[in-house]
């Protein structure tokens, strides 16, 4: 069986509304980032992959298994939805055990794997705690543990770091990277920092269409030579914001240190900077005529 996810000409409709438009992707082993704004169609794509939504048109195969064969696909995929919890009165161990049974694991397999996984996500000490007493970060870690409980070939995580504090976010990203050593991990997010920190290959989804697919360095190269930094007065800021994409700013007394995108150096004091994923993403969205566009005079 192939160890890739193949998506060919996938179209997805909700009534007359088209949620995915002619999506073509090949996803290989390792971390794969799916980036896009809220409502871009990321969750729809995730749900098609985990067989929670029937595809309208096209072909989708997960490790050689068509998504139409739901039970086969479910056997080899783990899923961490964007919004989830578990029965609040169950303990951490009980919740894992229950989901383990639903994944078809034997008692012996559960006894071996659950403590190992809880150890790995740093929840072994909390195994007797009720789910309702867990913090957001602990719940997310438990979510990852349940998703890889049956040792799936594919792990699909949808917006996993939303609402986590910075420390938990870093811990969670590391956990995902470790998990990706032995399987395909698809990380769907609108947080560019998560992708930058974890993924080599990415796709950017906008209004149901894949507008970029490739490596992170390739994406960054699209913005190279177009990222500038300058210290300007506050009165100039509004004019700059009107004319181009300001990606960050830092107030320094009466002045502001701004980072922005432009095709050419717009004024002498602007210094060229090394592009990051966020810069490239913003540039890409503008190229697509998105809401983040800059005026013609600069871009």
């Amino acid at each position, binding site marked *: 069986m192939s160890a890739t996810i193949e998506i060919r000409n996938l179209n997805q409709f909700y009534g007359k509304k088209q949620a995915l438009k002619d999506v073509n992707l090949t996803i290989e082993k390792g971390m794969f980032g799916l980036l896009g704004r809220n409502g871009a169609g990321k969750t729809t794509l995730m*749900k098609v992959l985990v067989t929670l939504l029937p595809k309208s048109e096209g072909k989708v195969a997960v490790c050689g298994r068509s998504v139409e064969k739901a039970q086969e696909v*479910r056997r080899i995929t783990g899923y961490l939805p964007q919004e989830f919890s578990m029965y609040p009165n169950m303990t951490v161990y009980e919740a894992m055990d229950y*989901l383990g049974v639903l994944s078809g694991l034997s008692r012996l397999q559960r006894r071996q794997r659950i403590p190992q996984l809880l150890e790995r996500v740093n929840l072994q000490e909390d195994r007797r705690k009720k789910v309702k007493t867990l913090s957001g970060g602990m719940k997310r870690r438990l979510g990852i543990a349940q998703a890889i409980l049956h040792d799936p070939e594919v792990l699909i995580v949808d917006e996993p770091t939303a609402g986590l504090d910075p420390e938990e976010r870093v811990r969670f990203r590391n956990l995902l990277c470790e998990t990706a050593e032995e399987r395909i991990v698809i990380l769907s997010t609108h947080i560019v920092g998560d992708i930058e920190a974890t993924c080599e290959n990415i796709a950017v989804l906008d209004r149901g269409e894949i507008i970029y697919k490739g490596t992170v360095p390739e994406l960054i190269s699209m913005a190279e030579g177009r990222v500038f930094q300058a210290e300007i007065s506050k009165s100039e800021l509004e004019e700059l914001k009107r004319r181009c994409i300001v990606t960050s700013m830092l107030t320094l007394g009466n002045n502001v240190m701004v980072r922005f995108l432009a095709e050419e150096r717009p004024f002498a004091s602007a210094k060229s900077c090394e592009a990051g994923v966020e810069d490239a993403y913003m540039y890409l969205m503008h190229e697509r005529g998105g809401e983040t566009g800059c005026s013609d005079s600069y871009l």
Partner: protein
Amino acid sequence: MFGQLFVKECRQTAKSLIYWLIVLVMIFDFASQLGDMDIEKKPEEGQEDYGNKLSDDKNVIMEKTLGLLAEEYNRQNYTTYPIGFYKSVTVDEEEDRRIGEIIAETTGLSERTDVEKAIKDWYGARQEDTEGTGPVMTEQLALEPVEGLRYERFEQLMKEADDILGGGSSYAVPGLEGNAVVPKTYEDAVVEYENLVEKDHLTGGYARLFSDYMVIFLGILPVFLAVTRGLRDRRAGMRDLIYARKGSSASIIVSRYLAMLVMIVLPVLILSFIPLSRCLAYASAAGISADIFAFVKYIFGWLMPTVMIAAAVGMFFTEVTDTALAVLVQGAWWFVSVFMGIDSLRGGLYGWSLIPRHNTELNFAGYYENFAQLVCNRILYASAAVILVVLTVIVYHQKRKGRYRLAWKGIGRLKRQI
């Protein structure tokens, strides 16, 4: 996987508050109705009262029914129970005239004053007969039918009277026998006692009585358990985690369903040990050969189909609508069944009721003669429950694939367009 899932579902049920509330209601029901249950003693000759029975003598049925009709006609007010609920009916002039004609044809009393006089005369005569020996007004008025009145014609006229009153009256043709309440004789009482001891082996009669009380609440309680279980996945935010698992929809739904049945029936079985032990103690002292498994047989044969259908209705409607609608559906059905069952407390009139009643340890004959009907009734509900569970599995399976949700939204959109 199924066995382990079943055990886990049982544990989940045992940890839910709603389950223990259900158990408390069952204990309350049992304690209030059977807490101080006395075992039927052998009747002795010369006893003041041996209870009542329904007569199957057509003449008695006609007399008692006509007595009832005459009383209500004289009062110009009729009591009916359409779909089991009490209703006071007053007829218009034309309808009153027609009922008067029916009474005239069946009793020969052509004027309202004649009817009034006949009633007074009957009660007067009863008072003289029983002077100083006890209450007389409890005995039901009986009016002799006119000579030559055929039973078929009597039934035709009673049906007409029932139609005039809007149905659900004492004159509805299936059920006229219920009007013919007559006192039991010593011989009747002995036959019933012998049936209880020899044919029912004592425990059979009490198992029926136990089932009669328990079936009332078991017709509604399982729906609460099914609805809360059905909604728990969504409320807990666990639905997608479960949907995305390998486990088949059939094993998930059937394990939940069986766990519900077992957890509901378990306290019923435990409660049945109390009347069973009393019966066994009495049987041992009286030298009666008791059937030790009678309660188990009745729990699974009589009660289980009701539990099955109530739980299945709960699961099905919850899965279809994602709401607690099932409580309303089952609640309405239960309410109507309970009220309609009031007329069949003596047992033997099981019909197609969700809640078959037999509110006595006696009347083995009624049970025996209508056993086939009872079996058909129970098979019907058990089969309907199985069908609903299969439908629930289908709906659940489609929901897991996102199909049912889309279809549901599609219907909503279509309706808006229309």
